[in-house]
């Protein structure tokens, strides 16, 4: 009997024989990665300027834009609640803004169902600019011109880091749907 091509029975997520997805991983990875994204900026000590991009928000955008239909529309509420505990903004800011962003993306998607990556990047860039600027306006402190100027590095970094986060999310998505051995 001639041998079959060894990869004939596999796809991007691994072999299909006697393997299957893990429902736990498939469900938990998007949420967990966003929670981690909210937590990571706490570890950096930034006394002078806001240096670290809002990683939780960027990860949420990346999951929503790279994998549409995976996160429910209301995901901004619980995830924003967690982010508010650590971000340093007044409580409720992330809940409001993350929910609003999810709704905005939903309506953009109604208009533009087929998009290329650069359009996703553009959407994410606009949203993150709006997020950081409204964070500056609604920070609980008086918004001043010097603190606005101090936002520029963070703004640039947040826009530039989005493709990278989108790639990480794509990798996580492959891990999410990986077929594991089932005995």
């Amino acid at each position, binding site marked *: 009997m001639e041998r079959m091509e060894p990869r004939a029975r596999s796809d991007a997520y691994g072999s299909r024989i006697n393997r299957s997805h893990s429902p736990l991983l498939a469900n938990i990875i998007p949420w967990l990665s966003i929670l981690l994204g909210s937590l990571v900026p706490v570890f950096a000590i*930034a006394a002078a300027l806001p240096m670290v991009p809002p990683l939780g928000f960027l990860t949420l955008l990346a999951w929503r834009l790279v994998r549409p239909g995976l996160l429910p529309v209301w995901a901004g509420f619980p995830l924003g609640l967690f982010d508010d505990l650590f971000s340093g903004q007044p409580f409720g*800011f992330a809940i409001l803004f993350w929910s609003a962003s999810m709704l905005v993306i939903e309506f953009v998607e109604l208009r533009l169902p087929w998009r290329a990556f650069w359009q996703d990047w553009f959407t994410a860039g606009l949203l993150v600019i709006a997020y950081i600027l409204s964070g500056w306006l609604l920070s609980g402190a008086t918004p001043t011109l010097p603190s606005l100027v101090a936002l520029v590095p963070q703004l640039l970094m947040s826009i530039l880091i989005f493709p990278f986060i989108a790639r990480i999310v794509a990798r996580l998505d492959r891990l999410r749907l990986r077929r594991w051995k089932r005995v």
Partner: protein
Amino acid sequence: MAPSGTRRSSYSRRAQYNLFTGYIIAGIGALIGAVLLGLSFFQPSFFGGPRSAAQDAVSPATETAATVRTGSKSLWDSISGYYRAGSKNAELKREMELARIRLEEAEAVRQENVRLKGLLDLQDQERTPVAVARLVGSTASSTRRFAYLGAGSDDGVEVGMPVRSPRGVVGRILETGSDSSRVLLLTDSESVLPVRRAGDETVAFAEGRGDSLLRIKLINLGINPLKVGDLFVTSGAGGYYPPGIAVAIVTELTDDGGLARIVSDPAATDFVAIEPIFEPDAASGATTPVEEELTD
């Protein structure tokens, strides 16, 4: 990537209801967020409880990261110390000798100070720090400049206590959890600190600008007496900070004072000390919450 077909609800009633409910929940979520945001504007300390509990929950991780951070920093310092070690060593020896002489002089002044205070019947009690802890994290992605500290109410830390490093003032406690607390750093744009110029009685306020500099606002307006390089120390007014701790060095002059750079960069400090409030009676005179009290 194109959206999957699941958003189109087709004829399935259940799918239609699910979609509709999702929109409703998202809308309600945004509304709740707006209400909470409004609440926390009027009562900044209102959600302090859940926030400190969350900080306490992650404090094992942040503590470990802080230990690694300070460890790797000192490793880097010892490596870079080898660069031009010889000339640096000679220079440091010269400085050291001068510093020893100054130290002896300062000791003589201190003794005289004690004697004169004894004559005046002024009592100076020893000030010991309430706790010594690491700065374990900060709100690095927010416009506000808060830091998290690895000590909380279990260690006796209370709201309002000054936080200082060996170099100078770092900030003051804003919220406490059981073993972590939140510090309002000097660079935050809500932080205001009464200061005076070291060496004379030029009093001023040092306000954070939110961009790593402090704005020195002189109280007596007139000809601006400041020079670039002037050191400002705490004046003790307000009752929170003990007088004479280094705060900032003037780097640029403006019409009503100057811009100054903080002496004690929290990112470069290893351990910080939390000290008791200098004059609790004076400080408790202000019954308003800390954040509001700082603004006026």
